[in-house]
């Protein structure tokens, strides 16, 4: 049995220093720190993310979910007050365990009213420079990235073409799936390891099927989700959106998620009526981003495993 911490004292000190740096960064920019509940009555519909469910306790009238991100609650704060806000929070994702995943992890999430996703990418770059030091910036649209590095158009290629290309680079056995499965494989196995090598690399404007909660707009000949990701040394560090503010469209996306869940044999999840009511009331035009604090600390310390920056990782708590 390991009663001792997984991280050494140096990493624990560096975490404390990093948290102080983050708070200083936002204080200097007049972004308000908020706290929202971890144990929520509403889960999320995202078919790729499984929450932990709490079902026993005298205060419970129905099961509650450990939050998978503070996004919905923060958007409700934003809809009510319209202030730029940030939060340093624990989030929980069931089944995500590996060298870069711990089922309980720390997120930095912030929202900027009036920013589009490019303005927010600039601010993410400022923050990361402050934490990890200066590096050149790189920016590619998702489409540009696939065209330049894989010579394929991720928006127009057929599923068969994407599958053929993926099979040239890796062995997925008898794996079958939709267009996003092959795009995810190419992104995570072929492209991602080389992204942000010696630089800070932003990828933006994703296929609409991967827009998540980003606004969808027409761009040139295709429609794109105004979502972005930051990669540093082959590590996915942050994910942001120019936020969807339309309540009716948000409800359709929740319903589409549930349709995907049904197809995959997963249980459907109730949609978060609190969030939808806040959007009905009116969410200011804004952009928001979530950044993995443990991964940021991995990059700052040179750790190759997330366990090395956690006082007590999943196996020790």
């Amino acid at each position, binding site marked *: 049995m390991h009663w001792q911490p997984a991280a050494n004292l140096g990493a624990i000190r560096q975490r404390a220093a990093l948290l102080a740096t983050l708070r200083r960064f936002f204080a200097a920019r007049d972004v308000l720190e908020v706290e929202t509940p971890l144990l929520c009555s509403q889960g999320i519909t995202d078919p*790729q993310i499984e929450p932990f469910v709490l079902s026993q306790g005298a205060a419970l009238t129905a099961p509650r979910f450990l939050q998978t991100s503070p996004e919905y609650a923060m958007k409700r704060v934003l809809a009510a007050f319209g202030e730029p806000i940030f939060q340093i929070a624990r989030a929980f994702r069931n089944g995500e365990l*590996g*060298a870069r995943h711990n089922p309980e992890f720390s997120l930095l999430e912030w929202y900027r009213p009036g920013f589009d996703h490019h303005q927010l990418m600039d601010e993410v770059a400022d923050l990361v420079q402050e934490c990890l030091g200066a590096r050149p910036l790189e920016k590619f649209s998702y489409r540009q990235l696939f065209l330049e590095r894989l010579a394929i158009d991720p928006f127009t290629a057929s599923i068969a073409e994407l599958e053929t290309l993926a099979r040239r680079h890796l*062995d997925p*056995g008898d794996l079958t799936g939709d267009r996003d499965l092959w795009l995810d494989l190419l992104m*995570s*196995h072929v492209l991602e390891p080389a992204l942000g090598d010696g630089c800070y690399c932003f990828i933006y404007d994703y296929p609409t099927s*991967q827009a998540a909660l980003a606004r969808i707009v027409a761009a040139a000949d295709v429609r794109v989700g105004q979502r972005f990701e930051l990669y540093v040394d082959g590590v996915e560090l942050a994910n942001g959106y120019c936020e969807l503010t339309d309540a009716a469209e948000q409800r359709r996306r929740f319903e589409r998620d549930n349709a995907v869940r049904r197809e995959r044999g997963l249980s459907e999840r109730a949609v978060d009526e609190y969030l939808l009511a806040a959007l009905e009331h009116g969410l200011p035009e804004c952009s928001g981003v979530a950044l993995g604090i443990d991964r940021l600390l991995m990059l700052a310390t040179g750790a190759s495993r997330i366990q090395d920056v956690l006082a007590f990782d999943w196996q020790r708590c």
Partner: protein
Amino acid sequence: MANYSTSEFRSGMKVMLDGDPCSILDNEFVKPGKGQAFNRVKLRNLRTGRQWERTFKSGETLEGADVMDRVMEYLYADSEFWYFMESDTFEQYQADAAAIGDSHLWLKENETCDVTLYNGAPLSVAPPNFVELEIVETDPGLKGDTATGGTKPARLSTGAVVKVPLFISTGEVVRVDTRTGEYQSRASKS
């Protein structure tokens, strides 16, 4: 055998894949924040020895393979099989040419080997890292030539041909690294 899910895959676990028993070497969880979860698994096919990476959707399962590693003594060979014995149970096993592969070049009677059993039968045989074998044929030794560093081929009692220094003669016993097939030294006198 039990089924194992990708989240249970551990280094050293033996599983069935595409009809062959395989050993898991490494298991990496790969998941984009907003995308599907995969496990990128490094495997070795225990029948062919091939190492490669296979990507699974997280949550997929594989059947466990009935594979065991045993230390056994090599006894002898006939025209078809090589015979091994487990020293604590005295149980004997016969390995065919496919299981032996190139290992027959290094098998010496009464040496211990690592034998991998699949469904109770030898699947592969690994000889000791170093064996001492007699030279049955080589060009005459050049007496006193220990400095020039030249080599010549020599045939060992098992049929293996290794490069030895010029001063080594037929009838001498030499020590060979079975992983590289390279001559190490003259055998220590026993």
